[in-house]
């Protein structure tokens, strides 16, 4: 009976693993929906900012701002890598980490003063394992990063950029493109590549005369930092959404694998049990035969 019992025990343990992975899949599905809602709310905000910029440009305003101008020489740079606090999400953390490391080495080859900042426990430990200690690390961003938290970071980056402590900021994160496609990307957020909506021409041809209070320059002074903050916030939201999708997929695959393993084990168990019974029967019959004979 030994073999059948071992198989049965394995089957039980796989069943309980399946229960766990199935639950995790459901949890990340719920979290994904919530994260997705937040991302679309942020998109509504971004669209309106874009519209204001377009209206400003339409009103004949030259868009120029210190944050938009690339520095002639980059002496100090910062790289921010967004990973997850938790594992069990397939290649999500690995992809971001690999890309971040490659980017870091690329910049380190050109300049010395590069600061590495990592968000998420997984990324921090991955960098530590490679003997690269991040200069700053954050673990407070879970699946619902709030604007307030990101704002603190964004304000600091802005201050550092303005005072010349950094000349460039790269963010490595997983961009959410569609449900079936998320990709680890590097984006240079400082200096800003440009304001969305600034270069677009007015198709209707009729410019609306806006009252600009207090003045166009003053509005621009505020709108450029704001759009940087929102962009950074969007990176965090994208990363959160992608993480949940990655976990959903990984856990779905794990559940399916557990299912097929249970099938295999069940079959092997039944066969072993049947074999055992046959052997027992044969023993009984041959014993009876021996007595009769």
């Amino acid at each position: 009976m030994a073999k059948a019992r071992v198989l049965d025990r394995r089957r039980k343990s796989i069943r309980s693993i399946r229960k766990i992975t199935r639950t995790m899949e459901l949890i990340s599905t719920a979290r994904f929906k919530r994260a997705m809602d937040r991302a679309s709310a942020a998109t509504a905000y971004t669209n309106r900012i874009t519209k204001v910029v377009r209206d400003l440009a339409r009103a004949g305003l030259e868009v120029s701002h210190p944050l938009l101008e690339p520095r002639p020489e980059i002496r100090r740079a910062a790289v921010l890598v967004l990973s997850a606090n938790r594992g069990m999400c397939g290649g999500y953390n690995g992809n971001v980490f690999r890309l971040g490391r490659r980017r870091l080495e690329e910049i380190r080859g050109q300049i010395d003063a590069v600061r590495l900042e990592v968000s998420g426990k997984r990324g921090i430990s991955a960098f530590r394992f490679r003997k690269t200690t991040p200069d700053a690390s954050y673990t407070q961003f879970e699946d619902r990063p709030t604007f307030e938290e990101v704002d603190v970071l964004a304000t600091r980056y802005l201050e550092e950029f303005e005072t010349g402590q950094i000349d460039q900021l790269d963010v490595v994160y997983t961009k959410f493109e569609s449900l079936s496609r998320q990709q680890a990307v590097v984006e240079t957020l400082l200096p800003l590549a440009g304001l969305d909506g600034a270069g677009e021409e007015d198709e209707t041809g009729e410019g609306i005369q806006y009252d600009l209070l207090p003045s166009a320059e003053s509005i621009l002074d505020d709108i450029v930092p704001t759009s940087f903050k929102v962009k950074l916030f969007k990176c965090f939201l994208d990363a959160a959404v992608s993480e949940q999708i990655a976990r959903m997929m990984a856990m779905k695959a794990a559940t399916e694998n557990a299912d097929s393993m249970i099938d295999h084990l069940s079959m092997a168990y039944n066969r072993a049990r049947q074999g055992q019974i046959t052997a027992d029967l044969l023993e009984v019959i041959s014993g009876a035969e021996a007595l009769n004979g």
Partner: protein
Amino acid sequence: MANLQCIVVTPETTLRDTPAEFVALTLYDGEVGIAPGHTPLIGRLGAGEMRITQDGKTERYYVESGFVEVLNNTVSVLTSRAVPADRIDEAAAVEQLDTARSRPANTPELMAIRDRSVAQGRAQLRVARRSHS
């Protein structure tokens, strides 16, 4: 007369999208009142109070920086933070004011940062205290 449509958006959520009769906002350098038929306007918001009047009732919010756009009787308020006046955390505002006051301000940039923080703290307290009285 046509009513205003008042939309308040923060990066996290669309706070409200409702009709209104009158909206008052604190701009960077003073208050502006918007009634139906207002001329197109783009304004930079300062820290302060936003009042939305509808059916004789006035709702009050604390708004911290951002923009307002008025076009075709639609008032779009884009702000990083909007809190209903009766839900302002007064203790936190006092704390912000205190830490802001004790910040070093030995360069123009730092002074600007400090001033902004002080103004935000004061405005929060002002809005919060008005709702008590």
